[in-house]
């Protein structure tokens, strides 16, 4: 690898300048004269002086080498070290491992062993979330959300967190290539400049452009080459919502919804909590009203959906409905609310009356087996909570659905929740379908001479019936900028490697009044360039104009001229710029766009998308891989799907009835035909899915995706058609049984919810406790089981909730965790954060199949209810750091022991790997290194340079044969202790944040000192809804779970949970008050 990254030789070169200045010879009075010689005894002034200065005059003078012997000290040392180095080099390949150069002069900003944090931005998708990057000795090791960023507020998704692995991906493009052979940037520039000058038509294909400065570069490019057309597309472009918005309100800038003020939320085929746009922000706002520590009333989430989504699984009321009937359902609601209940002025609008008659809610509900009670509740809630509710249709839904939903929100007065901030800015408008068609046609008819791909992969992720790959072959000059090889670079002659977001500059404009800055945190690892800089070189037409700082200067210049002048801060630009860089963003008072009035005509004339009796195909955004770009990232591949827990593959989820109809079982392939497109995909039978719905994630099946990314799952873009009303929803799909099977693997077995042995086992075993919000409001302690468990009185035992009581051994800080199940949506981002923080290896699909995944924190998922209407629970499970840890007493070599602050630690060096501790762990959270995973996966992929530099230096990289598990981020605790001791105080619970806690977008994880009774953490831990999982084994877990409350009107009716226990409990409560 390039030695540049760690080369600090420029910082040590001025060795000679160090001067030793003799100290003044002030003789202290009254000093006891310990003498070693007579000269000293008699205080010979010369001697005293010599003693003070340590060095004689001769010593201080620079030696004249010529006067010395033939071999100077320096020469001798040089020869000595050279021969030693030669001997060392002869013995091993030490030099291959890179140079290790100590800091001779410490750079001001680097303290060895201490991390530096830089605010930057994530380039994982077009959302432009602010990030905070932790670097150690000049290399980034962890990415988190920027806590001060106004949009994502310290949280980022799995892709952003795992992007650190993409930086160190050994398969990144390392230098420019022309037709597969290595080339120099200057030569590439020459050739392309010549082609650009002669081109009749140039096409630039880009993702959504959210950077104002990059937009300026593109404008300049178009000015320099006027026959250029820019095509910007995004797979998940939210286009139907935007176009509906435009039709309804005449603007494309959609307002940010004040979700935190919504009392009733109705999600229609919407995954606003997981894969839909803005989900990080949504999660935070949604969880804001699910906080049992505050008095805020819980919101109520209704979900009506065909697929099973994270949002649906977290809904209070969920109804399954075939996805193409959702629009009709909206119309029925409108008819019910307007026609029957006449809740708004629109009820008198004569244009709408004919619509009411067509859609009758009762009939619709009956016909589609919707739970009558839930529909009733929904209508009541919506009509009661006018102006305090919000209806959200999914990104996948067609424009007509969004128009109907916009109207529904309008009549409910929910426009009150539309803030004045706009989101989803299109700095440059996205290309329409027609544009993209024109691009492909122009390429095919050889009108386009040069096509430049700006880190996009249309050969993979553009709807397959564009036949982009075929069309591309007709272009003479095919240029692709990319971080790593992909399907498009494979078709291009010029493949130009670009900086990752860790190495380059950038800015993002995604929200009214917010600009996010992206700054490099590491020198480029390879001979890559910033794509914007290359474009600028081409704009100038002079290849000599390139310099490494080109875009940096351009960006600063643009900010100085445009941003700075428009904001007009009171400080000079330099200070402003550095302050902005330090913050990672600037927020300023931007004049918000006024929310315009609804155009009723749009709704009246809205052509409905009709339902069919065929199968509906839903193409979903991949939970962890996004559009598939990040396929070579093993952490993302191995992150379980929150719903199915399947890893490494995408699959077709279908309902039980549909599986029966098709005669298939899990892993059988089905053949899906969407118009002229077809694909065989393995089936996963998913509880809660609507019948005749197939839900598949996009982003699998990469063909040129790297060692890790190639060959996992199925290329479902081949089912995507440009012809549909929505790119993600097709309702005239033919499905038949396919040939053969394909094994899907998951991290969790699923058990039939109707098997009497396993039915409701999570309640019977006291793993999950839940009740309704109403019961909780009436009696907060309704779920506490003080005196009995499983019907057996345990009076003779100490209290069951003993684990929350003080422990005599731990008098100082005692670390503990609280997990709020009301906030946790099962998104898994904690898992990925933990992976990055704790150097957790990727094990591969074959090893997940045999239950050897290594995740230290996992999200357990439980179903209750019926297979058609399941009630899901998510439960993050990690080491509980039990006071009576059963793992500790069985380890023969005492490799796992308890610390005085209550942590169950692992001494990896001592572990011999008997696995007894893992067997004896009731929570099964211990992970064993069955292999040297880094050596095994992808034939040593994860120990190839520069992957080694990714690892967190604070955490041991575990060898094979060693047990590992969650340590409560011990390294962070030790760090905080160090800081506290340096500051001369005791460490506080709030000093430490674990990686999972930092990452949780819903703030469901709290960590702190359970002995600090004044802290909020203590209060939370002692919350009446708190319980420990499997308390009755008496292992005394230190992780407290806050029972799940469902904001529903009817009791859940779980046996032994939340029932009235007359007498005893009330008496206790009275005593306390």
């Amino acid at each position, binding site marked *: 690898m390039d030695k540049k990254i760690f080369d600090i030789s420029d910082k040590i070169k001025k060795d000679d300048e160090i001067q030793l200045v003799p100290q003044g010879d002030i003789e202290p009075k009254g000093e006891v004269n310990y003498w070693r010689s007579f000269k000293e005894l008699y205080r010979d002034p010369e001697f005293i002086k010599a003693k003070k200065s340590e060095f004689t005059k001769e010593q201080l003078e620079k030696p004249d080498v010529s006067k010395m012997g033939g071999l100077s000290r320096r020469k001798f040392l040089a020869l000595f070290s050279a021969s030693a180095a030669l001997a060392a080099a002869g013995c091993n390949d030490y030099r291959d491992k890179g140079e290790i150069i100590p800091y001779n002069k410490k750079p001001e900003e680097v303290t060895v062993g201490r991390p530096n944090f830089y605010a930057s931005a994530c380039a994982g998708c077009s959302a432009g979330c602010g990030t905070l990057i932790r670097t150690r000795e000049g290399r980034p090791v962890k990415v988190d959300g920027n806590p001060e960023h106004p949009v994502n507020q310290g949280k980022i998704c799995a892709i952003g967190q795992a992007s650190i692995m993409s930086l160190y991906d050994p398969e990144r493009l390392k230098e420019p290539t022309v037709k597969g052979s290595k080339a120099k940037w200057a030569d590439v520039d020459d050739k392309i400049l010549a082609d650009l000058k002669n081109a009749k038509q140039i096409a630039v294909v880009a993702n959504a452009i959210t950077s104002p400065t990059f937009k300026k570069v593109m404008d300049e490019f178009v000015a320099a080459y006027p026959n250029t057309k820019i095509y910007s597309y995004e797979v998940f472009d939210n286009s139907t919502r935007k176009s509906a918005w435009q039709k309804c309100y005449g603007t494309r800038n959609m307002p940010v919804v004040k979700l935190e003020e919504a009392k009733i939320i109705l999600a229609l085929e919407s995954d606003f909590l997981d894969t839909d746009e803005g989900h990080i922000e949504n999660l935070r706002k949604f969880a804001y009203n699910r906080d049992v520590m505050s008095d805020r009333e819980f919101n109520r989430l209704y979900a009506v959906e065909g697929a099973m989504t994270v949002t649906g699984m977290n809904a209070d009321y969920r109804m399954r409905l075939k996805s193409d009937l959702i629009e009709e359902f909206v119309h029925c609601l409108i008819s019910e609310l307007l026609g029957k209940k006449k809740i708004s002025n629109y009820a008198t609008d004569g244009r709408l009356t004919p619509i009411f008659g067509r859609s009758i809610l009762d009939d619709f509900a009956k016909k589609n087996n919707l739970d009558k009670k839930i529909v009733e509740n929904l209508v009541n809630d919506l009509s009661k909570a006018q102006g305090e509710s919000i209806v959200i249709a999914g990104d996948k839904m067609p424009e007509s659905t969004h128009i109907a939903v916009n109207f529904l929100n309008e009549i409910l007065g929910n426009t009150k929740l539309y803030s004045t901030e706009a989101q989803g800015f299109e700095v440059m408008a996205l290309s329409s379908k027609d544009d993209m068609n024109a691009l492909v046609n122009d390429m095919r008819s050889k009108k386009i001479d040069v096509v430049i791909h700006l880190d996009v992969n249309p050969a993979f992720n553009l709807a397959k019936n564009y036949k982009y790959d075929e069309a591309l072959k007709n272009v003479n000059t095919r240029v692709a900028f990319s971080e790593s090889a992909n399907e498009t670079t494979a078709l291009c002659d010029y493949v130009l490697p670009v900086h990752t977001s860790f190495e380059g500059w950038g800015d993002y404009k995604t929200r009214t009044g917010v600009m996010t800055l992206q700054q490099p945190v590491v020198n480029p690892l390879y001979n890559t360039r910033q794509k914007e800089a290359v474009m600028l070189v081409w704009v100038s037409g002079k290849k000599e104009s390139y310099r490494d700082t080109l875009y940096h200067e351009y960006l600063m210049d643009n900010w100085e001229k445009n941003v700075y002048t428009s904001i007009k801060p009171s400080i000079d630009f330099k200070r402003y710029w550095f302050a902005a860089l330090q913050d990672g963003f600037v927020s300023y008072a931007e004049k918000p766009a006024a929310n315009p009035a609804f155009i009723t005509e749009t709704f009246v004339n809205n052509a409905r998308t009709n339902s069919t009796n065929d199968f509906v195909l839903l193409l979903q955004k991949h939970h962890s891989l996004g559009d598939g770009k990040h396929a070579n990232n093993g952490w993302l591949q191995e992150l379980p799907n929150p719903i199915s827990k399947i890893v490494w593959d995408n699959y077709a989820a279908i309902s039980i009835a549909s599986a029966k109809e098709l005669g298939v079982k899990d892993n059988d392939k089905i053949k899906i035909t969407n118009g002229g497109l077809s694909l065989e995909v393995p089936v996963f039978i998913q509880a809660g899915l609507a019948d005749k719905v197939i839900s598949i994630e996009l982003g699998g099946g990469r063909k040129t995706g790297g060692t890790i990314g190639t060959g996992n799952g199925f290329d479902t873009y081949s089912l995507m058609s440009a012809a549909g009303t929505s790119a993600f929803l097709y309702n005239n799909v033919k499905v038949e049984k396919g040939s053969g099977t394909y094994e899907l693997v998951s991290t969790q077995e699923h058990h039939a919810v109707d098997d009497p042995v396993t039915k409701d*086992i999570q309640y019977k*075993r006291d793993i999950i406790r839940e009740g309704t919000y109403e019961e909780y409001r009436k009696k907060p302690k309704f779920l506490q089981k003080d005196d009995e468990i499983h019907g057996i009185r345990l009076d003779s035992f100490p209290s069951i909730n003993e684990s929350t009581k003080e422990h005599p051994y731990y008098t100082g800080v005692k670390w503990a965790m609280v997990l709020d199940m009301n906030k946790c949506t099962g998104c898994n981002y904690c898992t990925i954060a933990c992976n990055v923080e704790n150097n957790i290896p990727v094990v591969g699909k074959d090893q997940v199949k045999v239950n050897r995944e290594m995740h230290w924190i*996992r999200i357990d998922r439980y179903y209750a209810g019926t297979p058609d209407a399941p009630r899901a629970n998510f439960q993050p499970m990690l080491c509980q750091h039990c006071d009576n840890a059963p793992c500790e007493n*069985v380890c023969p070599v005492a490799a796992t022991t308890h610390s005085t602050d209550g942590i169950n630690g692992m001494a990896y060096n001592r572990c*011999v*790997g*008997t*696995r007894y501790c*893992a067997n004896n762990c009731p929570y099964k959270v211990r992970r064993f290194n069955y292999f040297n995973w880094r050596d095994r996966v992808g034939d040593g992929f994860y120990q190839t340079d520069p992957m080694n530099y990714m690892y967190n230096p604070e955490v041991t990289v575990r060898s094979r044969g060693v047990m590992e598990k969650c340590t409560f981020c011990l390294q962070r605790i030790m760090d905080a202790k160090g800081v506290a001791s340096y500051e001369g105080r005791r460490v506080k619970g709030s000093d430490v944040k674990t990686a999972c806690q930092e990452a949780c977008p819903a703030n469901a994880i709290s960590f702190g000192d359970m002995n600090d009774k004044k802290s909020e953490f203590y209060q939370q831990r002692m919350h009446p809804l708190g319980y420990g999982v499997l308390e009755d084994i008496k292992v005394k877990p230190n992780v407290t779970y806050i029972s799940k409350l469902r904001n529903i009107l009817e009791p859940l009716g779980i046996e032994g949970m939340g029932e009235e226990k007359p007498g005893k409990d009330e008496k206790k409560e009275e005593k306390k008050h």
Partner: protein
Amino acid sequence: MAFDSTYTRELPLVDSRSSFAEIDDTVLAPTERKPSKKWFVAFLMANTALLIGAICVGYTLYYGIGMWGNNNPVGWGFDIINFVFWIGIGHAGTLISAILFLFRQKWRTAIARFAEAMTIFAVMTAGIFPILHTGRPWLAGYLLPYPNQNALWVNFTSPLLWDVFAVSTYLTISFVFWGIGLIPDIALMRARAVSGIKKSIYAILSLGWKGSNRDWQNYERVYLILAGLSTPLVLSVHTIVSFDFAVSVIPGWHTTIFPPYFVAGAIFSGFGMVSTCLIILRKVYDMENIITLNHIEKMNKILLATGTMVGYAYGMEFFIAWYSGNPFESFVFINRAFGPYAWAYWIMIACNVGFPQLFWFKKIRRNIGITFVLVLLVNVGMWFERFVIIVTSLHRDFLPASWGMYIPTMYDLGILLGSFGLFFTLLLLFVKVMPSVSLAEIKAVVPGAQPTHHHHSEEH
């Protein structure tokens, strides 16, 4: 029916009134002749199995435990199953040689030597597994409490550590006991040896045995002391092995019945293996008149008794699971009998409790063919008992979310095969170089060797 004299008459311990020389010839024949073709075939088979096992062990050491089927819920698989299985087999020898010796069960003489040898080889085979099962076997020395500069000490609360002491003590005592018992016989072989090398080897091993009165007195005393020392070990070793499970919190493991249940099972399996081997041995080396049908029948009775004890334990586990009202425990047992590993459970029940009931019938007890089949089944059943205990308890424990299946790999099977290979290789070498029946003791129980009351009265 009135008791006739045959009812109270002791059955002869050695059929036929063989002379001492005939016995010597019969027993020592294998050690003095060139091995037969049959021996070579058997040796080749055992060696092949051993080699396969060695290759699998090699792969495991090179790549890691991941070569096996062990996984996250099921941290122990064939490794510990095999360990417990072989340790169990190692129980018959000491029981026969020590406990039956103390109880003056003279019929033990014909089978004691062989059973003891088997014990040692079984324990040696078993001993490989605790080392091999660790993730980093090269650090297995950490399990020993040795003073070191890191001031690291072993964890005396861990049953695995108790195992280390229990098994190593057992192996040592058994070995010494066996070695002492061999001295008079080796002295005899020294006397009979023709070749010089053989003579000198036997001379060293016989520790200068002269056969003097004093020698015999000392010998008998040492033998008695060692028998006394070994006796508690028979009970303690498998008790401690059972602690590996009983001390844990895992339902299906965490039960107090385990120590007696394991000891009974160990004796059961040990006798199963002794029978299996002896039935072959007596046939191949024409020792039918020394290891008689009476011996087989007696062993079958013990098999019936211990098998039934084991069956009682199985039943009691179920009863307690229900009676305790502990939902975790009840689930484990329902899952054992009807879950995905039910087949293993029913194999265990059939082989350990079901088929041995046939031994109630004298005809079957004395039928070599049926006995052979039944003892083979006992071996199978007892191996599956450990499989059931370890795998079914672990694969579905407390949290349903962490449940998983355990599927052994070919490396697991290879190592299991290899363990049999090692055991039988050692056994075959033993029968080649050492007397498989204790000559000194058997001569004492040959009809006519002892002065009897009747004999005396005849003389008078």
